[in-house]
């Protein structure tokens, strides 16, 4: 269970990215976060990862208050969350395979597990043939799928995806959504920030809409409202 209680975030330069946000997501739920460019979606993701701290309010994940979490516990908390970052954050000096295997090495997985799990995940996102390519040798969409593979490889209990279909054509995007949906059916909580109206509207899931840092709507089986 993920709870945002009266959360506000003001950046150092005075910009208020989130304003008194209250959200509660049950384990196993699938939630879309939508809103215009700059509405605060990525800020929400960064708060959830404890990459930045809220200016006000509390964030509670699985009964743990993030602001009370000890420094040493943070890595272990993050291992339970798979994230597809909007800017991918792939390591340029590692191949696709190594980028994904890397996430398993960090949790000290055995070589055997890595050799079984990584190709399976790469196959799932349709990148089996690119295993030995470096990020600079990939198309934008291939990089995005590599990031997704890395997020999934450790079977996280929460999957956070920031615009995971932004660089994908409709067909590939649909394929990716099928995978994410499957992961969700296995019990993983999914939080996905996106602009893709088609996808949001076709999935019939809960949709939380942000406008200038404020939650303006939060509906089960919601739609992507166009504000203009």
């Amino acid at each position, binding site marked *: 269970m993920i709870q945002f209680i009266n959360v506000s975030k003001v950046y150092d330069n005075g910009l208020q990215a989130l304003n008194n946000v209250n959200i509660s997501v049950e384990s196993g739920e699938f939630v879309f976060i939508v809103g215009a460019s700059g509405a605060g979606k990525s800020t929400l993701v960064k708060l959830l990862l404890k990459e930045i701290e809220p200016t006000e309010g509390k964030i509670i994940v699985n009964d743990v208050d993030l602001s009370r979490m000890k420094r*040493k516990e943070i890595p272990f908390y*993050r291992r339970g969350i798979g994230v597809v*970052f909007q800017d991918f954050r792939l390591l340029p*000096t590692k191949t696709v395979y190594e980028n994904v295997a890397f996430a398993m090495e*960090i949790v000290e997985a055995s070589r055997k597990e890595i050799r079984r799990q990584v190709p399976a995940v790469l196959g799932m996102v349709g990148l089996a043939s690119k295993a030995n390519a470096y990020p600079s040798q990939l198309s934008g969409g291939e990089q995005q799928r590599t990031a997704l593979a890395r997020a999934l490889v450790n079977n996280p209990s929460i999957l956070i995806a920031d615009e995971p279909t932004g660089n994908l054509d409709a067909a590939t995007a649909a394929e990716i959504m099928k995978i994410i949906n499957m992961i969700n059916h296995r019990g993983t909580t999914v939080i996905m920030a996106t602009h893709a109206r088609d996808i949001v509207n076709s999935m019939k899931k809960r949709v939380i809409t942000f406008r200038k840092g404020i939650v303006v709507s939060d509906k089960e089986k919601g739609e992507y409202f166009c504000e203009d």
Partner: protein
Amino acid sequence: MKIRTWKRMAGQGFRSLFRNRVMSLASISAIAAALFVLGLVMAVVMNFNNIIAGLESKVEITIFLKTDTHSSDIKRMEQQIQSWEGISEWEYISKDEALETWREEWGDMAYLLDGYNSENNPLPDSFHIKVQKPEFVESVVEKASKFAAVEKVQYSKDVVDSIASIASTTRFFGMIIVVVLIIMAMIIIHNTIRISVYSRRREVNIMKYIGATDWYIRWPFLIEGMALGLIGAAISGGLTAGVYSLLLKRISSSPMQGNLLSQFQLLPLDSILYPIVGLFIMVGSAVGIAASLLSISKHLKV
């Protein structure tokens, strides 16, 4: 941590040495340069110390005895001199032996002494004493002056003073230069490892956000830093050994051999190299590790 994690980390550390060739080369040549100069300074200081030790043992005190001192008095003095602290060598030279020595030393000019023989020898009997360290000169002179049979005690205050002065000046400036160089080496190594961390700050950042522990991130850098230090130490050790043995060869084949400089024998390579290389390894790896720890800490902050 599990053994496989250690292996991965060592692998990562060394791989990043190769992947970041440019920076590794910079670090290594900085370390090597600093340690090389440190090595040269140490070699010079050690040789100076050696020469000083040699010179110090050469300080000689001469005790001239009154004419016609009785041989039983001389015997008694011999026994006492032997018991003094800090004496390294002593010798009794009778006036006849002294005259003979003068004749030999004067060579061409010895005809000036032709008028003298054991009957009318104007020279006195004397004791010649060498001390272990210049510090003992004063006490020896003092004690010697108390003998009733002593005409005069003579020693080179000049030589003693200037030897002590060379010694302390050399050590003083040797230390200044060595300290300056070690500080500079530290700055360079610290900076180059900071650069190495900096160039991988993206990687460190990503690792943090996908759940790596602080030590998981730190270890490869520590290993890399230590490897850099040790490689630098090895190179500078080789360089120092090479230059020093070249110097040894050159000196031993030079025309100086057998003349006034030959009393300053250079130390052999071995006795120079072991302490220097030992220091290199310590300084190299310590600075490498310390620099890595310092450098990484900034980027580990959440």
